[in-house]
């Protein structure tokens, strides 16, 4: 009897367990749907100011339901924080002051349900992620605790034992070798003779080589040809730095920025469109994106050492998100350097002639490190100037044509009319 009752009891327990499991599963499926909606909303509405684990524009959202357990309050805060502040809610006012009176967007278009889904998503994400990380961390810590001390001792003992064994074996080997030498004295002497014979043979070969004029001529010709080609290359490349790829102070990759991210050349080198110099961007241009992009994904959650160099250059503290007053310029190494006796103007080529940047700078979008693609020699300039047809569609040529028309009509043309009064004509 006892057996049967226990079997029935077990059966009942299994069934009820199954029921509970399936119920909770369906509940969690519901919850999963909610969390999914929350995720879409979170990604479209929140991520431009908030991150889960770090302060961006607004504070980190991790643990927000613990800081504010009253869900109704949290919902009304998220919907319209300014309303809450104006109504004089103490917590709201305090929170506003703590975050430098930064106004958070009002989301009056979201329903209670939707905001709760966002909260659920944030909770699920931080709880799940956090546990895993903690688990991993504690595992590592545990394995380290268990591992280090006993293994180190065993290792040291093992190394000592191996060392002693090696000494013993070597001693034995020396003894054996000494005995062998003693036993084979004659053979060794013979070998030495053979060695001197071989030297003699080399001398004989060298003498024969020198006597053979054809061979000597061939050899000399080879040396002259190699020296000639190397010399020719070196001489022609004096002052030509094609392929020059200096080590830069920051490992900036044009492949990532211009290639993968598709950032326009003009974004950083706007000067190329307006002035002689293409201009190296000042570090504040880097900070347009790198206040947010820290490369933490690839450095276990901490700041990328290369991006840290930008922060140091502009004296920026990523924790307080404030700038200090001790900026230090980044000393980039100049790659393209024309001699001072050659005048080159970027804007004339880029804005007026519509030459693509790639024409001279090559496939920059594929360069992990910047190098000089073109030789920048006079021959190279002249060749391009001989081939390129002029784009006549600009005001300069309109003026030129106008001047020609006047000439044809026989009107008087002064130097001033063709730009003779421009400052740069004399004072350059």
């Amino acid at each position, binding site marked *: 009897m006892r057996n049967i009752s226990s079997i029935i009891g077990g059966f009942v327990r299994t069934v009820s367990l199954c029921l509970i499991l399936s119920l909770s599963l369906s509940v969690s499926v519901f919850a999963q749907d909610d969390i999914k909606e929350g995720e879409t909303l979170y990604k*479209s509405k929140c*991520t*431009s*100011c908030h991150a889960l684990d770090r302060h*961006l*524009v607004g504070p980190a959202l991790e643990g927000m339901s613990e800081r504010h357990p009253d869900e109704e309050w949290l919902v009304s805060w998220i919907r319209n924080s300014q309303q809450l502040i104006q109504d004089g809610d103490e917590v709201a006012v305090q929170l506003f002051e703590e975050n430098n009176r930064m*106004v*958070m*967007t*009002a*989301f009056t*278009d979201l329903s209670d349900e939707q905001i709760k889904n966002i909260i659920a998503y944030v909770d699920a994400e931080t709880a799940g992620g956090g546990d895993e990380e903690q688990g991993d961390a504690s595992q590592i810590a545990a394995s380290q605790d268990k591992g280090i001390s006993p293994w180190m001792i065993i290792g040291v003992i093992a190394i000592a034992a191996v060392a002693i064994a090696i000494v013993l074996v070597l001693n034995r080997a020396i003894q054996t070798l000494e005995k062998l030498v003693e036993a084979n004295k004659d053979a060794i002497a013979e070998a030495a003779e053979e060695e001197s014979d071989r030297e003699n043979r080399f001398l004989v070969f060298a003498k024969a080589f020198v*006597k053979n*004029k*054809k061979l000597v*001529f061939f050899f000399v*010709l*080879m040396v*002259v*040809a*190699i020296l*000639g*080609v*190397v010399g020719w*290359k*070196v001489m022609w*490349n*004096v*002052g*030509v*730095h094609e*392929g*020059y790829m200096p*080590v830069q102070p920051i490992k900036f*990759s044009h492949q*990532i920025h211009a290639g*993968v*991210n*598709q*950032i*326009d050349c*003009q*974004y950083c080198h*706007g000067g190329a469109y307006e002035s002689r110099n293409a201009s*190296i961007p*000042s570090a*504040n241009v880097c900070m*347009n*994106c790198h*206040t*947010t*992009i*820290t490369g*933490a*994904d*690839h450095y276990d959650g901490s700041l990328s050492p290369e991006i840290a160099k930008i922060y140091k250059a502009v004296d920026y503290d990523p924790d307080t998100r404030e700038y200090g007053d001790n900026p230090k310029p980044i000393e980039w190494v*100049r790659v393209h*350097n024309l*001699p*001072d006796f050659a005048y080159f103007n970027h804007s004339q080529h880029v804005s007026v002639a519509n030459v693509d940047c790639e024409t001279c700078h090559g496939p920059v979008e594929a360069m992990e490190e910047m190098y000089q693609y073109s030789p920048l020699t006079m021959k190279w300039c002249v060749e391009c100037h001989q081939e390129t047809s002029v784009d006549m569609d600009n005001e300069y040529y309109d003026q030129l044509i106008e001047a020609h028309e006047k000439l044809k009509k026989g009107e008087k043309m002064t130097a001033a009319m063709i730009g003779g009064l421009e400052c740069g004509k004399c004072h350059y």
Partner: protein
Amino acid sequence: MKENILAMNKRSFLATVCFAVAAATVVSSCGDGKRREQRMEFARNMYDPVAYNPDQPNANFKNKITAQTPPEGSTPIGFEKFEYENTTEDYELAGEEMVNPLELSEANLQKGEALFQAYCAVCHGADGKGDGPITQDRSVEDSRGKRDLENFPPPPSLQKSDKASSSRGGLMSELTDGKIYHTIYYGHNSMGPYASQMKPEERWQVIMYVNELQEK
């Protein structure tokens, strides 16, 4: 042994020359053509300018920089100071008071579009829908191996049809010119300030183009 070198067999002479040249070519074509150091230079002093280049170090100044920041309060000729502060109140005020001084013309619109594509589209997307390339999933393969790159948080869409709301109230598509100008000048949230990259005229040209996107 007194044979003349020139009497050497013609064919073997030619072969020798060919071989030597080939060997020289092989020897001299080593490497991928990239080098860390500059090549030899003749008369270096003809390359270096007498005056300082703006990006050169300069021992004459305490901070060793050639391109010095102008003294505080100095204003270049023709420079118009932006009178509004970086506060919510001044943002609203700029939104009410500022008017685009440029004439609505095809040329201005075209320039505005070009500038928008160069400076804004990276985040805001080519059509202002907030889907620029750096907000999307993407990966790079280089000497450090293949890896995913961090996504920049996407900005709200500028288009009317998307009904996205601005973080400072109202819809993105209803932002007035002054508000957009204020945001370009100072930046907001994840967006950095663009005052150093665009001149006032260029900002207005961009705004003119943004107005077109807002209508979509």
